[in-house]
C-alpha cells in the first residue's frame, strides 16, 4: 500500500470509525507508524512469529518482515541500550517489554542513558518502551506491576498511560513520533475488555502532555489515569444517580504533566480525589497532591484524598488481589466521604 492509498483509507476510516479494542488500537498504531515511516521498527521478546505474549504485534512480522519486527534474546538491559544506538543512527525503535514488571531489569539503560543523553550532548533518543502493566488478572507479584512512578521522577523521560482505545492509539502515534524516550504503559486488563470507535490515521493523534476531561462535574474532581479511569467513571455515574456531580480528569500523560488541567479542575470543584492502581506511598498521586496543595491551596474545600493500592507486592490469590486493588467500590466510598466533608 502506498502512502497516498493509506491516507485515503484513513479518511474513509475516519469518517466511520470502527469499534476496536484497546489492544487492537495499539496494534493499529504500530502498523500506522510502520507504514508511514520506514525507520520505525519493533524489538522485543516473542513479538515476531508468536505475535507477543499478548498478541499485540500479531501479523506485523508477516507484513513488515524480520528486519522490522525483531525477536530478541532475553536481555533487557542490552536491548534498550541497542535501541538507543539504533536511534542515534536514525531508526525509531519501539520496544515491547513482555511485562512492565521486567522493566526493572533494563532500568539503567533507561534512566541513565536514554533519559540523560539529550541534555548532555544533544543527541535525541527517539525510542518508545511499551510496558504492559497492571493487575486484576491474577498475575501475581511479577506480572501485575504499575511502576510508572520510577519514571516520572526521571528527567528526560516522557511517560504516557492511556485509559481507552482512542488514547491508546493516539498517544502511541505521538510517542513514536516524539524525539524523546517515551515509556508507554498499556494496561493489560483493558487490552480486550475495552472497545471504542477509533479514528485511525493522523487525525487520531493525541498530543503528549494533555490531560482530558473524561467527565465534567461540579462538586468533586477525580484525578486519575490508566485502568482507574474506567473505575472512576463508573463511580461518577453511580454518584450521578444519587444526584452528585463529579468531574473526572484523565491525565493521559504523567510526564510532562498537564499541570494546568490538574489545577483547573481542583480550583473548580475544590475537592480532589486522586486514584491510581500503583501502591500509594511515593506513587504518582503524591506529585499530583503536592502540586494542588501548593498551587490551588486557596481553592480547596476538603482534604486531598488518595485512593491507591496498599504498600504490598501485588498478591496472587483472588481474595487478596481484590482487597489490594483500587476499584469502583473503594472510589465510591472515598468520594462519598469527601463529598460529605
Amino acid at each position, binding site marked *: 500500500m502506498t502512502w497516498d492509498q493509506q491516507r485515503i483509507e484513513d479518511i474513509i476510516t475516519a469518517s466511520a470509525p470502527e469499534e476496536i479494542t484497546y489492544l487492537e488500537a495499539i496494534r493499529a498504531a504500530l502498523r500506522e507508524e510502520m507504514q508511514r515511516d520506514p525507520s520505525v521498527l519493533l524489538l522485543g521478546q516473542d513479538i515476531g512469529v508468536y505475535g507477543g505474549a499478548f498478541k499485540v504485534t500479531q501479523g506485523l512480522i508477516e507484513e513488515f518482515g524480520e528486519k522490522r519486527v525483531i*525477536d530478541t534474546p532475553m536481555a533487557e538491559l542490552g536491548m534498550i541500550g541497542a535501541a538507543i544506538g539504533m536511534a542515534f543512527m536514525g531508526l525509531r525503535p519501539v520496544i515491547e517489554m513482555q511485562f512492565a514488571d521486567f522493566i526493572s531489569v533494563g532500568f539503567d539503560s533507561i534512566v541513565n542513558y536514554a533519559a540523560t543523553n539529550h541534555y548532555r550532548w544533544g543527541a535525541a533518543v527517539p525510542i518508545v518502551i511499551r510496558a504492559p502493566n497492571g493487575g486484576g488478572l491474577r498475575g501475581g*507479584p511479577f506480572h501485575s506491576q504499575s511502576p510508572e512512578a520510577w519514571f516520572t521522577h526521571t528527567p528526560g523521560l516522557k511517560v504516557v498511560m492511556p485509559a481507552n482505545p482512542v488514547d491508546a492509539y493516539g498517544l502511541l502515534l505521538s510517542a513514536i513520533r516524539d524525539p524523546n524516550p517515551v515509556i508507554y504503559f498499556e494496561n493489560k486488563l483493558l487490552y480486550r475488555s475495552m472497545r471504542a470507535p477509533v479514528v485511525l490515521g493522523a487525525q487520531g493523534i493525541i498530543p503528549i502532555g494533555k490531560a482530558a476531561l473524561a467527565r465534567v462535574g461540579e462538586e468533586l474532581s477525580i484525578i486519575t489515569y490508566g485502568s482507574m479511569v474506567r473505575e472512576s467513571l463508573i463511580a461518577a455515574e453511580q454518584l450521578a444517580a444519587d444526584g452528585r456531580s463529579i468531574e473526572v480528569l484523565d491525565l493521559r500523560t504523567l510526564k510532562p504533566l498537564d499541570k494546568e488541567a490538574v489545577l483547573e479542575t481542583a480550583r473548580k470543584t475544590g475537592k480532589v480525589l486522586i486514584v491510581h492502581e500503583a501502591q500509594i506511598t511515593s506513587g504518582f498521586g503524591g506529585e499530583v497532591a503536592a502540586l494542588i496543595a501548593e498551587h490551588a491551596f486557596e481553592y480547596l474545600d476538603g482534604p486531598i484524598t488518595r485512593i491507591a493500592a496498599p504498600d504490598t507486592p501485588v*498478591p496472587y*490469590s483472588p481474595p487478596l488481589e481484590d482487597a489490594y486493588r483500587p476499584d469502583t467500590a473503594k472510589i465510591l466510598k472515598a468520594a462519598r466521604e469527601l463529598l460529605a466533608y
Partner: protein
Amino acid sequence: MALLSPELLLQAHYWMRLTRIFDDRVMLLHRQTKIAGGCFSQLGHEAISVGAALALGPDDVIAPMHRDLGAYLIRGMTPRRLMAQYLGRAAGVSGGRDGNTHGCGDLSLGIFGYVSMLPASMGITVGAAHAFKLRGEPRVALTFFGDGSSSEGLCHEVLNWAAVYEVPAVFICENNQYAYSTPLSHQMRIANIADRAAGYGMPGEVIDGNDVIAVYSAVQEAVARARNNGGPTLIECKTMRMRGHAIHDNMAYVPKELINKWQQRDPLQHFEAYLTEQGLINDAGIQAVVARAEAEVEDAVTYAEACPYPDPATLMVGVYA
C-alpha cells in the same frame, strides 16, 4: 558414571511419575478454571529436576525454577502444600501471595523461592554457596536456568562470581530448545551453552537431560567436587519443552517433527524401559507407582480444594520481617 543403587533408581522413578501426574493434574485444573493466572508445564523436564535434586545432600540448598517441580517434591514440599499453592489457598507455600511455583520457598527444606525475573535465582544461589565457602561448611547450592536465561546479563555475572570465589555451586542449564517462542537460533550462535564454562574457568558438561541417570551422575560428580572445595560446575541438559511455554500457548511455532523426535525420547518412558530391562520393575510395578502417585495427587487436590482462601484482612501481613 556413578553407579546408582536399585533403591535410588526406583526412587527416581517414583518422583518422576509423581511429577508428571501432578503436572497433568495442574493442567487439568487450569482448564477447569480452578487455577487462575498462568501455569508452566513440566512435561519432558522430569529427569532434570529429579536427577539433580536426588544428587543433593540434606544440608544442601536448591533454587528450583518453573520447570523443576520434581525438586520441590523431593526436598519435602508435600503435594498438599504445593497444590494449595497452585489453587491460591492460605495453606499454599506462599499463602496465596504468589502463584504456581513462584515464591515456593522454604528455608527449613533448603529451598529458595523464585521471582519471575530470570535468572534471579542464580544470584541467590551463588550467594548461598559463597556463604558456605566463607564458613567452611561442606554444603552445596544448586540452581537451574533456561537457554533463554543464558542470554541475560545476570547469568554471566553469577557464573563469573562463582568461578572467582570458587564457591560450591552447581548450575544446571535446562536447554529445552526454546525460550517461550524463541528458538535457540535466535538466542545464540553456539552449539552448547556449557561451552561458556571455559570462559569462566569452570568445568562445563553437556548431558542428555532426558536421561535421569545421566543427570544424577553428572550432578553427583559436580556436587562432590563442590563439596571438596573444587568450585562450581556448569551442566547443560539438552531436552525439549513438550508443551507450550505456559498453558495458554499452543506452540504452533514448534515444528511437528521436532516434537515427534523428542517424543521418542520421553524421559519417563525411556527410564521405565531401562528399569524393566534391568529387571527392576515390571508393568504391574509401574502401575503400582502410578496408582500411588495418582492417589497422592488426588489427596492433594481434595485437600487443597477444601482449604480456605487467604483472609483479605491479612493482606498487609508480612511485607516486613
